[in-house]
């Protein structure tokens, strides 16, 4: 079990659906926590509540060291506190199809490129180049429309957008959905690197292999409750699947 008094992102007595029992969990800096479960069993709702995108039915989300934590009451508050969220459906909720790669990257962090209130294209380009290198984004030109990129590279641009916020906690909603295998492994390396640098990551994934590969700890959701918390050596495909289907491992 994780230490629930450590600084980090904490869900306290969180109720995500009527009648479900409360969830108390802490995401500590530097750990990668997986969220698993059959589709629609509450893991996505839990992630959205952590991001401030959905309001809890009970309990609260708090962020920071105990005693000095702030309540996350909304999405904007979450972003301001250092929590970044990467949405699931990148076509519907992520990319701006009419905009360039660079604009898609910068939209969350526009004010960082301003000189006397005006945008400096050079500063933005320089900032993008850092992440392009880090995530090995393959894009012809930064001013090309984002729709000219492959799905995997679009996803990398969205990840770069979230990382540009320099968050302490990164919430990923099925980040490798529809992404090719080679790109997946690049992303896995990036996630591990971020955790090693002290970022706390929560990854919702529909693929158990991915969770086994990345996470030290998995929360398995069933009927809007955490049915099982599996960590370290007990973490196997069999144990996760058993918990997903509500059987004792």
């Amino acid at each position, binding site marked *: 079990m994780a230490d629930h008094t450590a600084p980090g992102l904490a869900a306290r007595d969180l109720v995500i659906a009527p009648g479900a029992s409360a969830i108390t969990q802490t995401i500590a800096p530097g750990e990668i926590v997986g969220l698993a479960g059959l589709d629609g069993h509450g893991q996505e709702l839990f992630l959205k509540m952590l991001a401030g995108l959905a309001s809890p039915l009970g309990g609260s989300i708090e962020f920071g060291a105990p005693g000095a934590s702030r309540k996350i009451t909304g999405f904007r508050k979450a972003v301001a506190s250092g929590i970044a969220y990467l949405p699931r459906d990148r076509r*519907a909720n992520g990319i701006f199809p009419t905009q360039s790669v660079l604009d898609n990257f910068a939209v969350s962090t526009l004010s960082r490129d301003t000189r006397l209130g005006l*945008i400096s294209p050079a500063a933005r380009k320089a900032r993008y180049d850092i992440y392009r290198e880090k995530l090995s984004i393959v894009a012809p030109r930064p001013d090309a429309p984002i729709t000219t990129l492959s799905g995997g590279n679009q996803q990398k641009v969205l990840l770069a957008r979230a990382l540009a916020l320099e968050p302490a906690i990164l919430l990923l909603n099925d980040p490798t959905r529809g992404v090719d295998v080679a790109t997946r492994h690049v992303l896995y390396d990036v996630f591990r690197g971020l955790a090693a640098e002290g970022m706390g990551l929560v990854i919702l994934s529909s693929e158990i292999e991915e969770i086994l590969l990345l996470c030290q700890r998995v929360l398995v959701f069933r009927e809007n409750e955490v049915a099982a918390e599996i960590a370290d050596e007990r973490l196997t495909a069999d144990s996760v699947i058993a918990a997903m289907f509500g059987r004792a491992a």
Partner: protein
Amino acid sequence: MTLAARLLSLGRSVGFAVVLLVILLAVNLILSPGRFQPGSWGALVGLAAPLIGAAIASTPVILAGRGGIDISVGPLMGFVNAFAIQVLFLGAGISSPLVLVPATLLVGALVGAANGFLATVVRIQPIVATLGTYLILTGVTLTILPAPIGPAPAWLKALSGPLSLLPLAAMFIAWWLVRRTPYYDQLMAVGSDDRAAYTAGVDVTRVRFIAYVMTGIFSGCAGLMLTALIGSADPNIGPTYTLIAIAAVALGGVSLAGGRGGVAGAAIGAIDIFLLQSVLTTFNVSTFVLQIAYGAILVLAVMLTALQERFAMRGR
């Protein structure tokens, strides 16, 4: 972006409008060389200026997407026209541009803010909200000014010819500055996909609200250009600009779905319409035929823009 790439992307977004511009200009030069001789270009710009202004004014809210539209642009121009002449110049005896210009722009901003409040905070559909403002402004204008009256201050009348480039340039520079601010990227992001913009941390309501205020301020400016052109106050001219301006915006490659296009395209669309008007007047056709031409142009423009977008998508 290099200059060539920039021109190319501008050409892609307004493509059809530029081609039409060249054709119409050629036709005009052939049909009425007298009217289009270099010496009279200044006067022609003056004639076209209010429509160009109205088209530029209509652009920001359309860029903001999700049905964003402001049909009160024309009546607002008419109201500004009546307010500047009847209330400020003739009523209060103020003729200084240092008072008139800020006052009219402020009126524009206030009306824009009211539209923005209705459309983004109360969340009435933009076309309904601005239809309300349209009717109110038309009524108020007729109440304070039942019949045309004149004259306009001398400095304002002087802005009718070549000098009408001055307020147009001011609008372009204002938009150019907006393009350099973080706000512009947020506006285009919201217009492109508002849900994605929200998830990316953009304050969608604020961005749309500011778009309405900008449209209001630009409409105020366009109202001043109208006043300069007619040199008087007329309660019935303003409202006629609304729909033609929207046709010009659509013609100029600004997607009515938002997130695509800019004021340069809108201005080119407005010039197209002005030139078309000019061609048809040389044939002495009636104003009813003009209306038919506007309608046909609007439908054609929207269709061609959609086709253009489809080709652009296939090219990728």
